[in-house]
C-alpha cells in the first residue's frame, strides 16, 4: 500500500457519502488517448494558452475565492486499479449552470461529449454580457494519478502542475498552500467551458507532463462550504505528509531542511558566508586546474 492510498479511499468515500446525502453527481469519461482528449476541447491548452489575469468583470464563474472556500488535493498511487481511469466527477453546480442551465453535465453523459449548439452559445453570450457580477462557487479539486513506476519525485513535480492556470485558455488559477482560487472567463464560457473541459484539460496536461501516469481520475466539488471544509482538512493532512516525505528524502541525501529560520536572520550566517566564499575559491581553483590540464 502506498502512502496516499488511505486518502484516495477517504476522498472516494467522501464523494459516495455526499451522493448518499442526496447530492447530485455527474460523471463523464474522458477518452483514453491524449490526442482524443485534446481534440475534443473547446479551448486551447498548452503554453501561452491563457491570457494571464482574468478580472472579475471578465469572469463568468469564480471558483473557490477566499470567502467561498476552496481546497486542492493531489494524490498518487502505484496501483492503477485503485482509480477509474478517465473518470471526471462533478458534485454540485457546473460552470454553465451559473448563467444558463441548458448546458449541463448530464448532457455530456447522455450524448458522450459536449458540443454546444449555436443557440446555446448565443444564449450564453447574452447572459455573459448581461451579468454584472460573476457567480461564485466554493471549490474543491481532487486529482488522483496512478502509475506502477511513479515515484515520490514524480509526485513532487506533478503536484506543482495541478495548478497549471496559465496553460488553459480562459482559465486563471491562483493558489495558496491547499487553497485554489480560479476564474473562468466569459469568453471561455461562451465557447462551452465546463468542468468536463477543465477535467480533460488537466488530464491532458498532467499526462503530457509525465508519461508514467497510467490512470488518472479527477473530481470537482462545488456543493457548499461545509463539504469543502471537510476536504480541506484532508488536504492539510496530505500536505503535512507530503512535506515529511520531502524532508526525509533530503535527509537521505545528507541535508536537514527542517530549519526554523531563514539565512538572513540566522546567527550563524557569517559562518555560512565564509564557507561559501571558501567554496567559491575552491571552485575557481578547480576550474583553473581543469583549464590548465585541457591546454
Amino acid at each position, binding site marked *: 500500500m502506498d502512502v496516499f492510498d488511505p486518502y484516495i479511499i477517504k476522498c472516494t468515500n467522501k464523494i459516495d457519502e455526499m451522493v448518499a446525502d442526496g447530492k447530485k453527481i455527474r460523471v463523464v469519461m474522458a477518452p483514453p488517448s491524449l490526442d482524443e482528449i485534446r481534440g475534443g476541447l473547446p479551448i486551447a491548452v498548452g503554453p501561452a494558452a491563457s491570457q494571464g*489575469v482574468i478580472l472579475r*468583470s471578465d469572469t463568468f464563474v469564480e471558483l473557490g475565492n477566499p470567502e467561498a472556500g476552496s481546497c486542492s488535493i493531489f494524490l498518487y498511487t502505484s496501483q492503477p486499479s485503485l482509480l477509474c481511469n478517465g473518470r471526471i466527477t462533478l458534485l454540485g453546480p457546473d460552470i454553465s449552470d451559473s448563467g444558463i442551465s441548458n448546458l449541463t453535465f448530464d448532457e455530456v453523459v447522455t450524448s458522450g461529449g459536449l458540443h454546444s449548439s449555436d443557440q446555446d452559445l448565443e444564449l450564453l453570450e447574452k447572459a455573459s454580457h448581461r451579468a454584472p457580477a460573476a457567480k461564485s462557487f466554493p471549490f474543491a479539486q481532487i486529482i488522483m494519478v496512478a502509475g506502477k513506476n511513479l515515484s515520490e519525485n514524480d509526485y513532487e513535480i506533478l503536484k506543482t502542475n495541478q495548478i497549471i492556470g496559465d496553460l488553459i485558455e480562459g482559465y486563471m488559477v491562483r493558489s495558496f498552500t491547499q487553497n485554489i482560487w480560479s476564474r473562468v472567463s466569459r469568453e471561455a464560457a461562451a465557447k462551452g467551458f465546463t468542468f468536463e473541459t477543465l477535467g480533460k484539460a488537466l488530464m491532458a496536461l498532467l499526462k503530457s507532463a509525465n508519461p508514467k501516469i497510467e490512470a488518472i481520475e479527477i473530481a470537482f466539488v462545488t456543493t457548499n462550504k461545509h463539504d469543502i471544509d471537510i476536504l480541506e482538512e484532508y488536504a492539510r493532512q496530505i500536505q503535512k505528509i507530503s512535506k515529511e516525505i520531502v524532508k526525509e528524502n533530503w535527509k537521505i541525501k545528507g541535508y536537514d531542511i527542517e530549519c*526554523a529560520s531563514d539565512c538572513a536572520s540566522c546567527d550563524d550566517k557569517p559562518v555560512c558566508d565564509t564557507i561559501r566564499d571558501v567554496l567559491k575559491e575552491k571552485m575557481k581553483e578547480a576550474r583553473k586546474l581543469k583549464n590548465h590540464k585541457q591546454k
Partner: protein
Amino acid sequence: MTMSGNESAKLTANIPIISVCGKGGVGKTVFSALLGRILIENGLSPLLMVDADPVGGLVSAIGEKAVKTLSGVRDMFISETRNGGKLSAKEAADHLDYFILNALVERKDFSMLAMGRTTEKGCFCSANKLLRQAMDKIISAYAGVLIDAEAGIEQINRDVTSQVNRVFVIIDASQRSIDTLNAIAGMVDPSQITIIANRITTEDLLNLPTGIKVAGVIPANETVRQFDREGRSLWQLPDDNEAFMAVKNIMKSINLSNP
C-alpha cells in the same frame, strides 16, 4: 519564477500609468477621485486605482472599503520568510499574486487597491521587488492605472511600479506645495509632469515662481467640502459641479479626456 526588469516593463509599457503627487493636504485625493471618474467615463476601463495614502483617503472618497492592503501582503510575506513560517520564502513568493488579487476591490469598470501602512521595519528591497513584479502582472490586465500618491514619486517607484509615465502635481497657494513640486520635478522627466492648482484664486496664481506653468485651476467648492464632511462618494457629485467640470476641462485641454 521572477521577471527581469525588461520583461516587467514590457507588460506595462503601453498603458497610461498616472500618479497624482503633491504636498499633504493640497487636494490630491479629491483630484484623483474626480480624475478617475472622468477617465472611466471616457473609456479608460478597466482602470486600476491605487490608494497609496496609508490612511486610505481615495478608497473612501469613491465610496469603497478596502479590508486588505498591499502592505499587509508585504508584511505577511516578510513575516513568513523571516520566522520560518509554514511557507518557505519561495512558496510565499509563488503565492504573492494570490494575496494581491485578494487585496483588490474589483468592480465592473475599475479595481481599487489600497497600499495601507506597513508594520515591518526595514528596507526589504528584495520583497518590494517581488511585489512590484507581481503588481506589474496584475497591472497588465488594466487599460490604465491611477495612483493617488503620497507627497513624492519615490514611494510609488518603490512600492507599486517603476513604470509611471504621467505625473500630476497638485499645488495650492502655499510655498510648501511649491517646494514639494520642485522636489518632484527633480525626480521625474519634466515632460511627464502636469501641474494643477487647487483651491487657488487668480491673485494667488500671480505669486507663483517664474517658469511654473499651471495646466488649470480647480476652484474651492462648497459641495465637494460637504461631500467630504459627510463621507459621501465624490463620484456622486452632480455632473455640473464646478470642481468636477474644472477637472474635466483641464483634461480636455491637455488631451487626456480620452487617453
